């Protein structure tokens, strides 16, 4: 079994040779913090930050080294060791795609680490929190850096575990415990797809490494489509795409930095990474798998947006928007290299502005002693300027305000979509409009209008350790989009990794019909929001609202559906099975024993104790023998 390094014909040296440090450092951090236990309480958080930053440094150095290489040579394999002899060689693949993710994860991750120092300062178990965060970073890096599907899967489940632990960080809250369990189980449904996908892959192509598959000639056929769809199922689980979206909103039970890092910036985008990484199975454009990916994306971006429109819980609102934005990415990822570029681009920018807003929301909650109901906010702008401004920057970025990050990446996706599949494209445009509405709604309800606080609320700006990350993130939210998209920089950077023509600049014309209509729709959304929530008075208790509102508030009845389709039948099935096992199978066994015992009890009555009965039995026996002998004799 030749390892990827051999296939790629290069073995990484230099910093990249040590890129496993990216995973090792935070992993060690986690281990120390978990094993060290209370002893490390004092400095635990600092260690966590240090490890995360260390990983970031390694990532940056690796990037530098890559940039120094000729573009075609930028796929660097790092062979670690034989994992499953003959099947899996554990190794890392440092290429344009993975390094971009690595930077996002370690960069944003570190910022969030720092932010958490402040945010969790009052929590007695802050050390455990940082341990989990480090664990997550390590697993996420393994996910994106692994050079084969098994390694990816290990990271994949690792982040699932980390997310489980962090959602349930406040395990003593039943709601948190339940949410964590739900997240894990729903993800497992996706993992099932990923697993089976791997079975098929291995059976068909005899390899599970990206490089190996890169070599393999993969032409469209039933099997490949099947693989594509199975991987897509996995992606849906991780990225909270329909129909596996239901866990994400509950996941907001976790501390806010978690929501920012895992359920906005990084983990939930793993699905997109998987689709892009497995691009081969989604070719050619419009192939079943790709089509389904597009549909899923579109559906989710609308669903997320609709949900976002009705949530009063600021975090759930953001969660809805996250769903929606990932929907955009998934949509983009359905359209080949160009789409990939924009998808990844949007993924990165989204990482920044969504993290920015989540942390902002966190800062707000911090100020409003953990109140999450936006109806109890209002007029906070004056109280916490930094938070507000950074938040608003993120807001402008997400609605695609011209020249801010989201503007470039999202429009890119929309245009690509319209180019290949108008229906999806225009639905995406509509989604953009909705985005405009619900995000504005959030802004107005939170920062403007009259203060609707509880009596004991004394809003105040958060400490620097929390605001500085906000500022840095917001800078990213401003500039990153232009940097990545203009001149097709990101596209050309990724092209070798995801297979696209390098000397091609993806079209980007803001003044086309789609571009303008997008802007227009967004504007409309903003205006409506202004009238409903900016100008008008916001009631402290939510009005019953129309059917549509309830529909949105109930997460489009996703949970209700799951409950009636899976949970209840499942419970019945379980009860049935247990009953069958106890009464049926075991009953049979015990029944048999009882029968023998019973017959023994009856039979021994034959032993009457009367000598004459015995004599009779002897006589009878004699007759029997005689008869038998005569019978056999004459057979």
């Amino acid at each position, binding site marked *: 079994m030749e390892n990827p390094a051999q296939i790629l014909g290069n073995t990484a040296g230099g910093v990249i040779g040590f890129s496993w440090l990216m995973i090792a450092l935070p992993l060690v951090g986690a281990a120390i913090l978990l094993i060290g236990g209370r002893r490390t309480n004092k400095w635990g958080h600092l260690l966590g930050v240090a490890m995360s930053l260390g990983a970031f440094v390694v990532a940056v150095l690796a990037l530098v080294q890559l940039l120094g290489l000729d573009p075609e040579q930028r796929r660097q394999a790092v062979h670690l060791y034989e994992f499953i002899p003959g099947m899996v060689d554990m190794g890392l693949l440092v290429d344009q795609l993975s390094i971009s993710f690595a930077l996002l994860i370690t960069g944003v991750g570190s910022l969030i680490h720092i932010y958490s120092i402040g945010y969790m300062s009052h929590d007695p178990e802050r050390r455990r929190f940082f341990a989990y965060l480090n664990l997550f970073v390590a697993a996420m890096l393994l996910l994106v850096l692994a050079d084969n599907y098994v390694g990816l899967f290990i990271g994949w489940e690792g982040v699932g575990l980390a997310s489980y632990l962090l959602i349930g960080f406040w395990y003593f809250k039943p709601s948190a415990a339940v949410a964590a369990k739900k997240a894990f189980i729903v993800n497992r449904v996706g993992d099932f797809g990923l697993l089976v996908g791997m079975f098929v892959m291995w059976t068909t192509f005899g390899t599970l490494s990206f490089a190996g598959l890169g070599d393999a000639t993969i032409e469209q056929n039933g099997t490949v489509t099947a693989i594509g769809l199975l991987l897509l199922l996995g992606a849906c689980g991780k990225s909270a795409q329909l129909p596996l979206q239901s866990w994400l909103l509950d996941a907001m039970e976790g501390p806010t930095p978690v929501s920012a890092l895992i359920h906005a910036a990084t983990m939930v985008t793993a699905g997109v990474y998987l689709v892009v990484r497995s691009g081969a199975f989604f070719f050619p454009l419009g192939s079943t798998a790709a089509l389904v990916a597009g549909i899923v994306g579109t559906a989710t971006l609308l669903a997320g947006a609709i949900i976002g429109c009705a949530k009063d819980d600021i975090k759930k609102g953001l969660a809805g928007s996250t769903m929606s934005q990932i929907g955009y990415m998934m949509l983009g990822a359905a359209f080949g290299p160009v789409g990939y570029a924009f998808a990844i681009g949007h993924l990165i920018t989204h990482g920044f502005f969504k993290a920015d807003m989540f942390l902002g929301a966190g800062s707000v909650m911090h100020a409003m002693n953990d109140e999450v109901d936006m109806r109890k906010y209002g007029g906070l702008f004056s109280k916490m300027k930094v938070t507000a401004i950074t938040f608003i920057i993120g807001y402008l970025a997400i609605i695609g305000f011209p020249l801010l990050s989201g503007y470039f990446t999202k429009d890119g996706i929309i245009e690509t979509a319209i180019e290949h599949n108008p229906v999806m494209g225009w639905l995406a445009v509509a989604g953009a409009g909705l985005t405009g509405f619900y995000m504005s709604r959030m802004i107005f309800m939170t920062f403007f209008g009259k203060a609707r606080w509880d009596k004991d609320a004394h809003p105040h700006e958060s400490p620097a350790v929390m605001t500085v990350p906000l500022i840095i993130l917001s800078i990213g939210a401003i500039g990153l989009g232009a940097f990545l998209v203009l001149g097709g920089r990101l596209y050309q950077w990724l092209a070798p990794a995801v297979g696209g023509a390098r000397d091609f600049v993806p079209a980007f014309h803001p003044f086309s019909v789609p571009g303008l209509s997008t802007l227009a729709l967004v504007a409309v959304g903003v205006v409506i929001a202004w009238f409903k929530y900016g100008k008008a008075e916001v009631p402290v208790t939510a009005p019953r609202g129309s059917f549509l509102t309830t529909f949105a508030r109930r997460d489009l009845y996703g949970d209700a559906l799951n409950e009636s389709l899976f949970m209840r039948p499942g419970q019945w099935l379980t009860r049935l099975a247990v009953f069958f096992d106890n009464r049926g199978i075991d009953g049979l066994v015990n029944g048999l024993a009882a029968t023998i*015992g019973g017959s023994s009890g009856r039979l021994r009555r034959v*032993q009457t104790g009367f000598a004459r009965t015995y004599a009779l*039995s*002897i006589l009878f026996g004699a007759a029997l023998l*005689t008869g*038998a002998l005569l019978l*056999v004799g004459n057979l």
Partner: protein
Amino acid sequence: MNTIPAPTIEYGTLAPLLLIFGMAVIGVLVEAFAPRYLRRSIHLPLTLVGLIGAFALVVWQVAKTGVPTSAVAMGAVAVDGPALFIWGVIIVLAFVSVLLINDEDHFVASAAAVPGSSDEEEAEREGFAHTEIYPLVLFAVGGMMLFPASNDLLVMFVALEVMSLPLYLMCGLARRRRLLSQEASLKYFLLGAFSSAFFLYGTALIYGYAGSVELAKISTALATGALLDPLLLVGLALLGVGLMFKIGAAPFQAWKPDVYQGAPTPITALMASGVLVAAVGAVLRVFWVALGNMDWDWRPVMWGVAALTMLVGAVLAITQTEIKRMLAYSSIAHAGFLLIGVMATYDSADGNSKSLSAILFYLLVYGFTTVGAFAVVTMVRDAGGEAGHLSRWAGLGKRSPLLAGTFAFFLLAFAGIPLTSGFFGKYAVFAAALGSGNETGDSLGGWMAGIVVVGVIASAIAAFFYVRVIVLMFFSEPAADGPTVVAPSFSLQFVIGVAMAVTVIAGVFPQPILDIARDAASGLFIR
């Protein structure tokens, strides 16, 4: 006028037998002339010496003069390999049984005295004892030895009676629970007599068919004569009744539980071990030497009997609450297993000697385990004698772990768990059965596999009640007023020790015993 030729008797070959009977007769004389207070102290050494001497003679005969190749005493007695092996086994079993008998006053002071009457009290006060038991035992042992060795049906009948009559008596001599004991004695006697009448009538019919009662002559008659003569078949059936009764095969097993329960435990031990060994030996001889030529006819029938016996024994034992009754049923089940061995004969000399040695091995190990088990039973006492009811055994494992452990080990041996002698016994028999079933041309063929499966099921059921007793002894709480465990006398320790040793050794390293059994069986029965 012609003179009657004097019969030739090979005294050397018959020496063990004659010694036993001689000692028995001397014993009677002792009863007649020795003063009461001396009798016991004379009887015991006399008996033991007699047994030891007989054993020595058997060994000497095998070692020195070798196994005779023809019947002795004018063809009346066949002292061949199997017979000698069985003799050895019986003598040793008798020896330990005698120790058991002598161990402690199991026996009534004066059988004539009515239970609970003043006579009885007086007799007990005077310390009377029925020392006749010792000669009686010797007579019975002599019968046991003659039974499987007798080479014609008449001798066999006589041996049967010589073996049984003393036992009938001894069954009635229990010191405690005398009503039960006497009842057992009565039942055993009546039924025994009844069945021996069948045996005799069967003999008569076969005599009518063959014109002789010598096994060899019968065999030749079968080889030539008509095999469907009802005279023969009916005779065979009635003969079978007599023999099956003695080994307690269903449907002739009814007497066993009652008698085993009622009789004094040492006598039960003697019956359960010695009599069974002797009877199986006789069965083997009759069915192989005399009836070997019509195995196609009797083996299917025996198939049925064996299956029925195993199942009846195992199933009925499950719900027994009296330890001795339970052991009785277990011995019924084991009789069934032995019958599998008996029918595991397709007439290839090799196959026969295999199954024959299997049975011999089985008899030996089973005999010892049985004696051991009953010896343990004698130790667990209540106010009214032995604590027979199983519930009284609850929690014995905690009160006297050693005793309970020993008993548990014997039970596991009965159940045939590996690393106990019982396992190899069972294995040998099953193997012989499947082996003979595999012989090309065997009329039963697959049916042998069938009987083995039945055997498996039976032993699975049987395992249940053995295990149940273990559970009772170890896993359940001891009763408040539990039975007392008497401190074993030296001889009792010896008995249990010997039984234990055989059960363990034969379970871990059976090879030597198997060798002896194989050598004994190699010559097969002389015809």
